[in-house]
């Protein structure tokens, strides 16, 4: 299950919205109140109620569906939604959850390709009034052997204005389980590493080094300098006010135990790209000494713009502090 919180991005939508035109006299929202004030009230109402309130009157419908209004919502940090992908989104509906209203809404399934199934390990990236679904691992009925997962390069986006899916330009290198982050200042999404894995024979999966940048407005992928080493299953985030793209965790090479069982070689370091020069540097052991600390699931939270990086390892939780370069064990 993949879930993604849809935060208010700090930048405007891809096609920066022009100021709303003055309303014609027939489109008064609330009699006796300036429309600007009425819109403010509506923007405070939890998002889940908007669908119903649209049937109040024509002016409410157009106000609640307008692009500028959606952008106001995104900028407010009040109407946060969570989008949950319980399964392959081209087969099972993703769900939206409105935290403020405690309400659920199924989304239409993603457009599907009849030859592929079981899409997972994709990236769900919220950006403006859209969610981008990028890459992933899937099974292709045309490939051999049939039960070997392959990577996908396709990109879809979900549009909150009309609740529809659109095809976008595919990545140059197909991948799943990769690191990604939004670069708000330039309207880009960067992706790094990744590969495809089998749910049972995970360590036998593929890994790549390729790094790409997606221009949301132009709908174009561009190749950047590759990662210092092969890496999949990694997590990405922005640091130093969006100047650095960090890739942590994941696994690089695989080795075999007794020459038979493939096992992962976990990455304990971080790879950092300066977005200005595009050069990668490596930051040593992110999770401290402790030989037996095997990098587990890494989760990146957001603390008003700066990332909170946690690693879950069995019963322990570590938090990484960039400034000191140290990981601190939070719970035992």
């Amino acid at each position, binding site marked *: 299950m993949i879930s993604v919180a849809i935060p208010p991005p700090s930048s405007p939508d891809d096609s920066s919205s022009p100021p709303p035109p003055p309303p014609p006299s027939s489109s008064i929202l609330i009699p*006796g109140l300036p429309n600007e*004030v009425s819109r403010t009230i509506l923007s405070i109402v939890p998002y*889940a*109620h908007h669908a*119903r309130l649209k*049937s109040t*009157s024509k002016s409410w419908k157009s106000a609640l569906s307008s692009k500028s209004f959606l952008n106001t919502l995104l900028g407010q940090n009040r109407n946060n939604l969570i989008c949950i992908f319980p399964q392959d989104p081209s087969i099972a509906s993703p769900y939206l959850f409105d935290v403020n*209203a405690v309400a659920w809404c199924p989304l239409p399934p993603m457009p599907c390709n009849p030859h592929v199934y079981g899409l997972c390990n994709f990236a769900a990236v919220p950006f403006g009034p859209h969610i981008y679904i990028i890459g992933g691992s899937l099974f292709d009925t045309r490939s051999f052997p049939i039960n070997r997962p392959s990577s996908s390069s396709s990109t879809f986006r979900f549009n909150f204005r009309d609740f529809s899916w659109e095809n976008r330009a595919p990545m140059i290198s197909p991948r799943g389980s990769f690191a990604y982050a939004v670069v708000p200042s330039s309207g880009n999404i960067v992706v790094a590493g990744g590969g495809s894995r089998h749910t049972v024979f995970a360590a036998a999966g593929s890994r790549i080094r390729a790094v790409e940048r997606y221009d949301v407005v132009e709908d174009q992928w561009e190749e950047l300098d590759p990662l210092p080493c092969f890496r999949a299953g990694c997590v990405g985030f922005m640091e130093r006010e969006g100047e650095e793209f960090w890739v942590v965790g994941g696994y690089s090479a695989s080795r075999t135990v007794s020459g038979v069982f493939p096992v992962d070689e976990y990455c304990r370091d971080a790879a950092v790209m300066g977005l200005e020069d595009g050069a990668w540097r490596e930051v040593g052991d992110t999770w401290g000494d402790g030989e037996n600390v095997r990098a587990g699931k890494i989760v990146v939270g957001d603390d008003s713009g700066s990332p909170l990086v946690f690693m879950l390892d069995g019963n322990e939780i570590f938090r990484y502090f960039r400034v000191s370069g140290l990981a601190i064990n939070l719970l035992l």
Partner: protein
Amino acid sequence: MAEEVSSQMNSLSISETNPSSSATISLVSGDDIVFKVEPTIAKEMETVQSFIDETDGKITTIPLPNISSHDLPYVIEYCEKSIAGKITKEFEAEFVKKLNNEEVKELFLAANYLNIKKLLDFLSQVIADRIANKSVEYVRRYFGIENDFTPEEEAKLREELAWTFTGVDPDDEDEN
């Protein structure tokens, strides 16, 4: 808390058209009741303050034809609390408890007319909370909005809504 509030209400001097003293500002409500307030309170009301500034402070009696003597004390109370820095969650909860829907709407209009940012923000939230869980009919009635959809259009729109709520408020008590 409630006692404190009511004692503050009493301390407001309400008098029938008195000659204005230089230290205070007189606000005249739509129904000709004069409310004397400290100049600091007038500062909270941007509309009033700009009126005073335009006349270089010579005029201290300000007619507010759009605001009734019923609403003005609430506005003044909120401004006083705001100046004293005593706007707390408890105060706001207590404040809003006293108001029915009609009064909230009137106060909102008053705050909008007087241009009191904090009160406007607060009342926006109150109104949003009050309409959030309600039916469309209730919202129309509440704001006096005319339904300009044809029945077919409306039925189609309603079909589209697919949100499942864990609890929906029944339409309200204090509204006819």
